[in-house]
């Protein structure tokens, strides 16, 4: 291995200028982690500027049998950008040009390193916007969003990244560069764009992205409803769906989260509230008026203590800034926090939240809840201290237990953060051996050598059983 390590760094330094290859241990430390718990140090980090350079790096890795992993801004929460088996980390952060904004056809063509928020800002002058809005949108990249199929609050009505991605240029694990999809819809053949989005960088490296743009809404209204408890807040969410209302966003926060937000930067949330629901409705003026009335009525009918319509853009922006800064705010209350991402059918929200409270009591960890209630996408934040002996294992087990609750409710292990390293050993909770084998066949079709972002998504033999055995649970796999 020492020989291969030496060779690959030398080769990379021949391929790219010195300032675009990091290989000293000191420089590599920054790149051993992302937003998740796991860590692993790469052999080298490269900063290609074109698909040709990415292809050359991949080809060099293939020659020496060295694994490689693509990385955007490193904000991912499941370890997608961690080089789990070492090797070369391919940072796409410098491929950050918006190549084209095609106003007539409502499309943008971007490189993967473009920061999410920047795209929407660049298209606003044309009356258009890019919809997926993960909370990390000030930092995360479109390429990373494509890798993880990222969501955000407004995906309830408008869909997640896959619904807004129309074409990709991809460097395949063979080093070949191919294009799939593009500005036109319904390309004949298998929907490889759909398959690649959310494949967590395990099937190839995306070097160019065709995205959908949509007209900016005429009117937007944001409503804040305060509840005496999370059960009532949940029934408000169920009530909206039952009344055939699908707002643009329905977000829910518990008291712990509200206090954290308000102590960090006051955003207009009442600190005594046990549960708040933030609802956004948008569209043509008359639709928004009527829907806003209907939403407020549902909240009052489900025992809201107060229902408030944001008076102006400033108040609206403050509420959203609070919501999007919620994770960071929790970070101020605790040395560390572990972000869990799970999904349940909307009708199972109240029962699931109650179970999470029990898990919090049993485990001794405080758990804050801030999440996309409209689509049943939970984000329990487990507060812990990494310096405490044995805490890491316990916090991971607690996360796994919440995942089990979601799975038993008919839900999923991840709504928007991905499986990555974090949850690969939990896959048996929702997929059978055959289900995973089918996915593995796809991996082999794209990456027979297995060097493209290895150690992600697929369960390690034995490891998952060990995890559940520790909690005294059986998993039929």
């Amino acid at each position, binding site marked *: 291995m020492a020989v291969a390590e030496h060779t690959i760094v030398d080769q990379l330094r021949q391929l790219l200028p010195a300032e675009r290859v990091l290989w000293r241990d000191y420089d590599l430390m920054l790149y051993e982690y992302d937003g998740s718990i796991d860590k692993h140090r790469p052999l080298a980090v490269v900063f290609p500027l074109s698909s040709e350079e990415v292809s050359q790096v991949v080809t060099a890795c293939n020659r020496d049998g060295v694994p490689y992993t693509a990385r955007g801004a490193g904000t991912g929460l499941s370890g997608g950008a961690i080089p789990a088996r070492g090797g070369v980390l391919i940072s796409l952060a410098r491929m950050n040009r918006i190549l084209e904004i095609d106003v007539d056809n409502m499309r943008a063509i971007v490189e993967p390193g473009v920061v999410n928020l920047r795209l929407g800002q660049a298209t606003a002058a044309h009356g258009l916007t890019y919809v997926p809005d993960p909370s990390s949108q000030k930092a995360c990249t479109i390429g990373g969003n494509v890798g993880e199929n990222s969501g955000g609050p407004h995906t309830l009505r408008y869909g997640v990244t896959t619904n807004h991605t129309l074409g990709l240029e991809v460097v395949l694990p063979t080093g070949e560069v191919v294009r799939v999809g593009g500005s036109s819809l319904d390309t004949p053949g298998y929907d490889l764009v759909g398959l690649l989005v959310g494949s967590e960088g395990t099937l190839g490296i995306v070097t160019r992205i065709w995205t959908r743009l949509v007209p900016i809404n005429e009117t937007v209204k944001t409503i804040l409803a305060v509840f005496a408890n999370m059960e009532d807040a949940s029934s408000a969410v169920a009530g909206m769906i039952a009344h055939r209302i699908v707002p643009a966003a329905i977000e829910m926060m518990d008291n712990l989260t509200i206090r954290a937000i308000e102590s960090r930067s006051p955003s207009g949330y009442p600190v005594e509230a046990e549960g708040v629901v933030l609802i956004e409705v948008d569209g043509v003026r008359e639709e928004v008026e009527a829907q806003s009335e209907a939403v407020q009525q549902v909240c009052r009918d489900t025992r809201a203590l107060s229902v408030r319509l944001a008076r102006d853009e400033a108040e609206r922006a403050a509420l959203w800034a609070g919501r999007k800064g919620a994770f960071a705010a929790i970070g101020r209350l605790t040395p560390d926090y572990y972000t869990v991402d799970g999904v349940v059918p909307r009708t199972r929200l109240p029962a699931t939240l109650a179970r999470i409270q029990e898990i919090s009591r049993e485990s001794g960890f405080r758990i804050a809840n801030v999440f996309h209630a409209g689509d049943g996408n939970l984000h329990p934040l487990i507060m812990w201290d990494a310096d405490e002996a044995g805490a890491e294992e316990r916090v991971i087990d607690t996360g796994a237990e919440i995942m089990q609750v979601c799975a038993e409710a008919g839900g999923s292990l991840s709504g928007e953060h991905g499986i990555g390293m974090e949850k690969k050993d939990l896959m048996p909770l929702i*997929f059978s051996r055959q289900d995973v084998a089918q996915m593995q066949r796809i991996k082999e079709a794209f990456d027979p050598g297995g060097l493209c972002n290895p150690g992600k998504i697929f369960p390690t033999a034995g490891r998952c059983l060990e995890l559940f055995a520790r909690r005294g649970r059986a998993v039929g796999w």
Partner: protein
Amino acid sequence: MTTSTLEIDGVSPRERISPRTAEDLAAALKAADDTGQAVAAVGGGTQLDLGMPPLRLDVVVDTTGLDRVVEYEPADLTVTVEAGMRMAELQRILGEQGQFLALDPPAAEGATIGGLIATNASGPLRFAYGTARDLVIGTRVANPDGTLTRAGGRVVKNVAGYDLNKLYIGSLGTLSVIVELSFKLAPIAPALDSVVGQMPDLDAARELVNGVVHSPLSPLAVELLGPGAAVAAGLPAANTVVFRLGGYPQAVERQVRDLTSLVSRHGGQRIEASPSAWQDLARMRLVARQRDVVLKAAAPISASTALVAAFEKQLEGLEPLVWSHAGSGVAYAACNPPEAEALASLRRGVAAFGENASLVIERCPTVLKRAIDVWGDPGTSVSLMRAIKAKLDPKNTLNPGRYVGGI
């Protein structure tokens, strides 16, 4: 339908089986795969013309015996059904709860939900709600090795594992046979209306459509009809733009008002259509699909009217009916059979509109399929498609030869 009448491009199967359960269906696939027999899965049999003639065909697996609702919880706005359920039956069940599956392809009586998804069929509502890829949240498929596998799930937001749902949609049963589908649903709008605008020419239609799709107005559908298609839908012979509106009554009224004035501002005239105008259009599309030849073109959105113009011009004399989902850059033509060379030339013309613009011959006489590939050139990614096919269906059991690139 019996074995004697069911044939695909003139090829008749030796046997037809009608399993009642997913397990039986999977076992039948394995039996065929083990003995080297080729299988075509068939639902209502309403879209058998799509694709190239099969290289081999021994067994037809009829999915209509799998027609149960697996789970429907209206408050979750999701449903899980077996693939052989009739589309019309599914919409009836959902409609009782004020909900629907926002997919409105031309679906003949008897079309199954599995068949519509396997052919990635879509209709006008795609402008607002997207296509199957935006609505399918979970699949269960039977594989040639006899396994039954799931992808996705029953929740509306889910990124666990590869999104194989996308792969199965539109794969024409060449990778596996869909036995169960989960969908996200939409509430039926409290009010619905249509605006039918008769335009002086296609340029005016283009300006109108461009203006509306870039505006904050939010029609559910933006349709453009050539004169022939307009007549077939019971409207005057003119290039006609039709908007479908849905939402709260006051929002629908306002949009009807705005669109009416936009139509006249672009030199057109709103015509008082009958209350059934929207259904008449759907019927027109369905009837048109019975013509000898049906073509589908896709290009960047702003080329929608140019696609309609190209169809009208190149198919002149073949009694073409031409319509477009103009907000999506997708256009269709139904006509009498042209020469293969005319189709090839039309395809070259469409390709010029964009790097992945395409022309697919969705229906034509078998003899024409010997002269031209109905799918067109699949481009550089065909090697990946073949690699996927080789992994999921290694013995080439499922619909051999009917798909893109000879798959």
